[in-house]
């Protein structure tokens, strides 16, 4: 019997729950694999997919979103070895799984902790409730490729936002493999959209896009580019998360700033009965 020829994998984008090639047809070689080099138009398509997914995802109950995030952790656990084979250290995969679980727990607690009844001088109930801001563009940190990516996606989507993520250009394989995990985790298509390729090609489009509500510049290492992106983002008053410092410890307690920055607070005045 002849020796079996292994199937070589093509690493594609993840947009609207599907795995398309780049609209431009381009690819680049990284980590010994061909990876799609996304274009401005892929970024545009990803925003359209993300916008379409907002209604269903933000409208889902917090309990349901928490379950889906927990399901992601389950699926990631099952694929642990696959990530290790891609060169992701075992403890990083474990930390990434734990991070999904940690954020899953936050889904139905955000409104309690960051919303509530406000005391006012008048015959009113005054209630504040945090709501998702909408579509968030995210630049994932260069390293750690998996934990860093999970640490920027999970806080954005746990509250009901949808994201367009520019993956680490140097280590995109873990990102695309994570997309395969997401695609099999009951996460509705379009909630997470993943672009691989050059940050300088796709992110300026996202920063200027009028239908993007917030931008997370965590992975932008170049200070000049970060400033340029913030200026573009100012056009429609996007919420901005500034780049993370180079020595940021991704294994440490993530804190809540990432979640709370991507929320809008709605306050309701309701007349009290006599």
């Amino acid at each position: 019997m002849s020796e079996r020829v292994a199937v070589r994998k093509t690493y594609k984008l993840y947009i609207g729950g599907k795995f398309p090639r780049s609209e431009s047809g381009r690819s680049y070689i990284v980590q010994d694999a061909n990876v799609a080099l996304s274009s401005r138009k892929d970024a545009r398509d990803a925003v359209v997919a993300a916008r379409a997914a907002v209604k269903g995802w933000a409208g889902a109950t917090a309990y349901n979103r928490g379950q889906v995030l927990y399901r992601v952790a389950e699926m990631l656990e099952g694929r642990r070895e696959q990530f290790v084979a891609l060169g992701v250290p075992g403890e990083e995969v474990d930390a990434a799984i734990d991070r999904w679980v940690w954020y899953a727990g936050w889904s139905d607690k955000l409104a309690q902790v960051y919303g509530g009844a406000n005391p006012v001088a008048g015959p009113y109930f005054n209630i504040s409730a945090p709501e998702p801001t909408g579509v968030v563009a995210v630049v994932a940190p260069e390293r750690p490729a998996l934990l860093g990516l999970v640490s920027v996606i999970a806080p954005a989507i746990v509250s009901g936002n949808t994201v367009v993520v520019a993956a680490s250009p140097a280590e995109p394989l873990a990102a695309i493999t994570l997309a395969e995990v997401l695609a099999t985790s009951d996460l509705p298509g379009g909630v997470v959209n993943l672009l691989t390729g050059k940050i300088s090609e796709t992110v300026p489009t996202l920063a200027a896009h009028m239908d993007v509500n917030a931008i997370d510049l965590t992975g932008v290492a170049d200070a000049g580019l970060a400033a340029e992106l913030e200026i573009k983002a100012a056009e429609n008053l996007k919420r901005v998360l500034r780049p993370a410092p180079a020595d940021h410890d991704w294994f440490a307690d993530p804190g809540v700033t990432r979640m709370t920055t991507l929320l809008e607070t709605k306050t309701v005045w309701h007349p009290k009965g006599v």
Partner: protein
Amino acid sequence: MTATATSARSDLSELGRSETALRTFLHGLPGVDQVGAEQRAAQLGTRSIKTTAKAQAIDLAIRMVDLTTLEGADTPGKVRALAAKALRPDPADPSCPHVGAVCVYPAMVPYVAEVLKGSKVHLASVATAFPSGQAPLDVKLADTRAAVEAGADEIDMVINRSAFLAGRYKEVYDEIVATKEACGDAHLKVILETGELATYDNVRRASWLAMLAGGDFIKTSTGKVPVAATPPVTLVMLEAVRDFRAATGRQVGVKPAGGIRTTKDAIKYLVMVNETVGPDWLDPDWFRFGASSLLNDLLMQRTKLTTGVYAGPDYFTLD
């Protein structure tokens, strides 16, 4: 004008006199090659239209839009807002052209007429028991007259599909002739409702029937049945108006309606018009899009071209 063309012309005007003559003529039209039409339409959809050509196409498409609202829930306020949008689709950019027409139900015509008075935007009204057309003829004609009296200068009528599919072509013909008469000076657009005609051969026959009876425009659909305008159907209709002009010298317009929602789709139709009937039809007087959501996509693409930044639906009106 040659002798044969003149005799062909008189022959065609005689057709409406008898059921037999109409049937013989319509069934004598060459059959449509279904695979060929679909392949041709798909092929024309692959053209890449970019930069300055795209900017021109978008402006032309905006001028061709029949901004439509045909809902039971239409109110005077809603149609007034729509009419205001027709006059100035992009309030932020004075260079943006106005649309071709506003299309509403007859009861809403007076409110739109107030807003459009003195402008070059046409006022179209559906009539003749739209969308089913299942009403007695005198009711349909009264519907038409009322719309014209209220201020509509274009009437979108539906053909009697029931009679057409039963093969009673003369009845369909006579209804169109009567409606045309009821229109007076208003332009008559004849809706074939191609989604209910089942075959491309029927689309070709209905197109010829509508043109022979005096329709100024032939329109694909009401937008009220699941299958609306498709590129192959529009291709068949464009070929019909081309052949009709060659045979009679009279030019008839075409209006695909329903299901055209994106700039990309609209540009595909413009390419098809240019390649099938030529630039004579690339004008709002001869080609229209029946659409509502298309306009916002055209405006967003236009904004992208002028500002270089992708626009979002938050910055344009909902209706």
